[in-house]
């Protein structure tokens, strides 16, 4: 049994509440709850801690406070309407949820979206990755006592959110990527907006690094803290920037390309230290890489349709409804019943800002998903917290949670 397996088995064997049996006044042991409502738990994460003084002996995450049964809800929606639910899972990276679900439905339908749709999707996803990492930057800084990081991170995120609103009409939970393409073409003036954002961001990243990368307090609190070995990361199923900070050189965008990633050139930052600082370095470099990716996408944005022109899947354009009876019939069918998807199952993955986001979708040939399961990276990564927190201080635990960047909407779904 590996070390990680032992820690997990040990924790789970004791279970919730069983820690108290170990309570020993001589050893100065204490069992406390951290959360679910705590400013450093990034949502409603509850941690059961056994402490010896300030040292964390055991840490057991207790989740489910945000569970709303989204997977079950999807089974009652049409294939297209389920997007509205899916996008609310990982609410800081909604484009990735939509994209992975749409790809799964497309793979069941056996259709391929036009190149322009692929490029638009990839561009929005990469901008979303920057927006998501900016929130991480802000909260990581804030939790380490650097209040200004929070202000800066949210200021730059606002630029991106404004652009999302310009394109999709909504700041969050867009419902923009749908099976068969995207909901609407990019609006006029999009290129100018993206380019102005891309022009600003690298300078701002320099500012951020100037703030934190060499800040003695920040270094003291992140270097050598929350270490996780490569073996533990693999055994615990950890993916994304946390895995890459532990030396796992794996990125689905590069290694199993999807959408437009095959056409792009970019680097995958990898660190080997495995501590909180390594995760900081990986995410900061990822944001810069995302800027490069978006530049390439804007330069190479193809023309043509932004969705499949199959009227059985996509409603016909509004302009046709006045002149074509067939268009009206197609429109009516899609609006009232949705479309059916051939029986089958598929597992599609995306590299989300938090790791491997997978959608397992089963169809029985009906007009709604038979089973929709999301492998959310936050959910799987959460288990590594027990291993990373063991033996550190409570103050280190705050740094570790921030570096984990969990989204409780994705953890609990």
């Amino acid at each position, binding site marked *: 049994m590996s070390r990680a397996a032992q*820690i*997990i088995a040990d924790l789970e064997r004791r279970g919730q509440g069983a820690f108290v049996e170990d309570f020993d006044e001589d050893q100065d042991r204490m069992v406390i709850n951290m959360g679910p409502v705590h400013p450093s738990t990034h949502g409603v994460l509850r941690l059961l801690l056994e402490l010896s003084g300030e040292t964390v002996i055991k840490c057991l995450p207790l989740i489910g406070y945000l569970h709303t*049964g989204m997977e079950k809800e999807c089974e009652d929606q049409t294939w297209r309407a389920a997007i509205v639910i899916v996008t609310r899972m990982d609410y800081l990276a909604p484009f990735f949820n939509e994209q992975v679900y749409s790809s799964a439905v497309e793979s069941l339908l056996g259709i391929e979206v036009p190149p322009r749709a692929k490029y638009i999707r990839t561009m929005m996803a990469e901008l979303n990755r920057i927006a998501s990492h900016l929130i991480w930057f802000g909260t990581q800084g804030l939790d380490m006592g650097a209040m200004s990081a929070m202000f800066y991170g949210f200021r730059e995120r606002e630029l991106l959110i404004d652009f999302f609103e310009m394109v999709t009409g909504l700041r969050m939970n867009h419902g923009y990527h749908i099976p068969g393409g995207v*909901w609407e073409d990019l609006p006029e003036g999009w290129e100018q907006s993206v380019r102005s954002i891309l022009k600003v961001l690298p300078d701002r990243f320099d500012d951020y690094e100037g703030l934190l990368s060499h800040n003695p307090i920040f270094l003291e609190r992140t270097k050598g803290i929350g270490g996780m070995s490569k073996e533990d990361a693999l055994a615990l199923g950890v993916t994304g920037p946390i895995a890459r900070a532990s030396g796992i050189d794996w990125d689905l965008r590069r290694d199993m390309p999807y959408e437009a990633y095959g056409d792009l050139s970019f680097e995958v930052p990898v660190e080997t230290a495995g501590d909180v600082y390594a995760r900081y370095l990986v995410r900061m470099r990822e944001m810069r890489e995302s800027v490069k990716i978006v530049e390439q996408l804007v330069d190479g944005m193809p023309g043509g349709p932004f969705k499949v022109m199959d009227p059985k899947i996509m409603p016909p354009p509004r302009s046709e409804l006045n002149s074509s009876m067939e268009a009206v019939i197609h429109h009516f069918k899609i609006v009232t019943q949705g479309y059916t998807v051939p029986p089958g199952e598929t597992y599609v993955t995306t590299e989300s800002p938090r790791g*491997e986001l997978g959608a*397992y979708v089963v169809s029985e040939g009906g007009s709604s998903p038979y089973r929709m*399961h999301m492998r959310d990276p936050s959910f799987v990564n959460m288990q590594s917290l027990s291993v990373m927190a063991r033996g550190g201080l409570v103050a280190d635990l705050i740094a570790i949670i921030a570096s984990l960047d969990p989204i409780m909407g994705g953890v609990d779904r």
Partner: protein
Amino acid sequence: METKWVDAGAWPDLARSLTEDGWWLADLCGVDRLTLTRGEGGRFEIVAQFLHRKRRERATVHVAAAGDPPAIPSIVELWPSADFMEREAFDLMGIVFEGHPNLTRIMLPDDWEGHPLRKDYGVGKVPIEFIPQPFLQFDSPHQQPNSQEAGVAVDRLGQPEIEGGQAAGGLSHFGDTKIGASPEEDEDHS
């Protein structure tokens, strides 16, 4: 992408041999095949996704869970990452993982009844999510229901108290989740 269908008995050995072969467990979830074509095992199964990083391949393993409650050997010792995944499948689908160190509910409260992702667990059919509350005491005599006159225990609305005092839940339940389940009147965005 290859797909395998195995019985519960063969699952730990298969998982071990896949692991030794370099496969990495990515995901594990439960499926209720109530109205789907079933494998040999029956209604319930788990679906595990594996990834081979060197070959850049994925593999899917379907493990049939027979019996009532459906049971499957746990692989937590082999893959600590399966801990939360198995607990989730137990909680939401009711599949028992034999040998799991702490098979308890992970998403839902510990006293929840039923397993919501099962196909015979309808959305909106179960409005009870309130733990029975003790009989409420009121300070003002005008608010206090007169239980002595009624001869039976009454709740604060003056209704005879249901055993366990469960009457408070679901009073305003009108099945909005079920209503929302009808086909969407989606607007045309084209």
